[in-house]
Structures are given as C-alpha cells and as structure tokens.
C-alpha cells in the first residue's frame, strides 16, 4: 500500500498513476476522477471516504491533508511507502514527518518528499528516503521508489 499526501488532487493523481503502472493496473481503469472540490471520486475499483481520501485497486491511497493520512494509519492502514508534499493545507509535511517518527511502528515507514521547495537539509532521520522536485520529476522516478519500497 502506498500513500500519496498532496492537497493538489491532480498532482496526487499523477503520482498515484505512476505508482499504479508499477502494480500492473492502469490507473485510468480504476476510474478515478477529481471533482470540483479536489476530492477523488470513482466509477469502479476506488473506495472513497469523507475526508477527501480515495484509494484504488492498485494499492494507492490519496490524501488531501496530513490529518486524514494520520487517521488512516491510526485505523490500522500501514503504508509501505508515502509520497508526501510539504506545503499542505493544515499541518504541513514537516509536522507530519515529526508525527511519524514519534511512534516506533510508523518511524520505519519510508517517505519520499515531493515538493517545489529547494530542500537542502538531510531528512533521513525522519525516514525520508528521497526528495523529488515537482518541477523536474518524472513518472519513472516515482515508479522507481514504488518498485523499491512497496510490496504488491
């Protein structure tokens, strides 16, 4: 299971799609759409919860904010990998990272930061295994991380 946390629903969908190809399921087949409110909806194969959260058959769940993602983890969904935006609505990505390392079970979850910010600091103590720049990243780079860290 991969979590994508980004308040930009279209960017999140692009990341999820890149991961989904790795799972052998075309994301478009899952019928994910983005509604006006930036919330995922679907025709088939996608589960939706109230907090702007959706998940596809391919094992990718999209969250519009850090709180919804943290709640999902509290409910028992333990992701293999998290793609995390930093500038989120509500608590930002750094707050989320801090929350993750506060618990022994979540501290080991690998996180890939996906941002337009120029981050020079080493975030490996927060479980960050990579940083992707939104301006230059490619689906292949996203896929590489999915392939390396996510169990399918």
């Amino acid at each position, binding site marked *: 299971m991969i979590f994508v946390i980004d308040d*930009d629903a*279209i*960017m999140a969908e*692009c*990341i999820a*799609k*890149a991961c989904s190809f790795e799972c052998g399921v*075309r994301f*478009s087949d899952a019928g994910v759409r983005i509604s006006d409110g930036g919330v995922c909806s679907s025709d088939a194969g996608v589960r939706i919860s109230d907090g702007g959260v959706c998940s596809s058959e391919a094992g990718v769940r999209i969250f519009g904010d850090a709180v919804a993602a943290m709640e999902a983890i509290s409910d028992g969904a333990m992701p293999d990998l998290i793609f995390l935006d930093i500038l989120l609505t509500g608590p930002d990505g750094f707050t989320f990272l801090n929350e993750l390392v506060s618990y022994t079970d979540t501290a080991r979850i690998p996180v890939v930061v996906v941002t*337009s910010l120029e981050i020079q600091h080493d975030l490996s103590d927060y479980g960050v295994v990579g940083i992707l720049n*939104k*301006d230059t*990243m*490619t*689906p292949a780079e996203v896929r590489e991380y999915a392939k390396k860290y996510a169990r399918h």
Partner: protein
Amino acid sequence: MDAEVDGILVAAHELKAPLSVLRQLALSFDGAGDGDEHIRSEMVSVSERAIRQVNDLTKIKRLSDGLFEMEPVAVRAVCDEVTQELQYLFRFNKRDLFVKYANRAGLVVANRELLHSVVYNFLLNAMHYSGEETRSELIVKDVKDRVRIVIRDYGPALPGDVWREMKRGFIEKPTSIAMRPGSSGLGLFIASRFSRYMNAKVGAVRHRDGTSFYVELMMSRQARLFE
C-alpha cells in the same frame, strides 16, 4: 522593489504549482494515436520552459538575500548546456543557431545558475524575434579583462525606450515591446537583473536587420594561475 515588479513576482510564484501539474499531466498522458508522443513531448517542453521562466522570476526575489555565490565558471560549458537545451526548439521553429567560441579565457566570475539563465533568456529572446529560416548567433569572445557573450538576432529593430534602458545597462521592469510582437521583455528583464547581481555588464547593439545583446563578465583571475 517596484510594487508592479513585486506583483509580477508574486504572480510568478502562484503560477509555479499549476505549471508543475501541467507538466506532470503531460508526462502521464497516454495517447493512442500516431502523433500523440510528439504532442506529449511538446506539452512537456512548453511547460518546462514556462516553469523555468517562473523559477527565474522567483529567483529575482531571492537575489537580495545574496544566496547565489560567485565562483569561477566555465563559460563554454554553460553556453554548450544552453544551446543543447534550446537546439530542438530552434529546429522546431525552423531557425538556425550558430555558435562560435573565440575566447581564450575559459573561466569567468559568475554564478553558474544565473549565467545559465542569462544566456538562456537572451537566446530564447533571439529565437522569438528571428524570422523563419533565419539564424541566431551566439558568439563568445574576450574583451580586455572580460569575456563577452553576444547573442545576435535578425528580428525587428529594438524600440527606443528599451534601447535606452539597455544602454543604461539595466531594465527596470518588463515592458511591452510593440515592435517585437508577443513580447513583454520578460527575458531581457530577467537577464538584466541576474547580470547586475553578477557585476556583469549588459548591453545591446542595434543593427539594420536585428539586434545583438551582450553580457560581459570578469575573467576569473584564478584561471590565470594555470595559464
């Protein structure tokens, strides 16, 4: 900073996210038709150019923080990098790009990232204002203790007000250049700001059939130790 310019920089910052999304969408696009791959790569290329320009604008805001270090930079390597990046665009728009290195000094005092942007913006400007089947030229040469990078286009002549600003060595803000359709002078504005930061001299020479823009950078003394 001028309020109008400040507004432009804020707008640029706001454009960053949607442009990145457009690029990702283009990269994720699965076309089925024969020409789809070409359309996809065009979409990626256009959005990448827009992102670059927006990033350059946001860098202007950061110039005052002095975060861009000056160091010896291999001028030819930077020019090669830019020409390679823009070669496809020139070809696609049926324009030629002629490059000539006549400089002996290899290193200049500059910030690599900013110098790349200056050459990129001047060249992009030249491509826009050259007619089809014409060529733009990038010539690097020594001028006393400086290295001059000249970018020549064969487009409409530069209007008086921009010419005066270029002679002064600094463009205050982007202006509408009516004689050069489709231009806000944004590239020149960016190049001018970055050049000033690097203590480089910028200028323009008017020709009957176009304009040459140039930037002059100090040769690196460090390089002379090896000569």
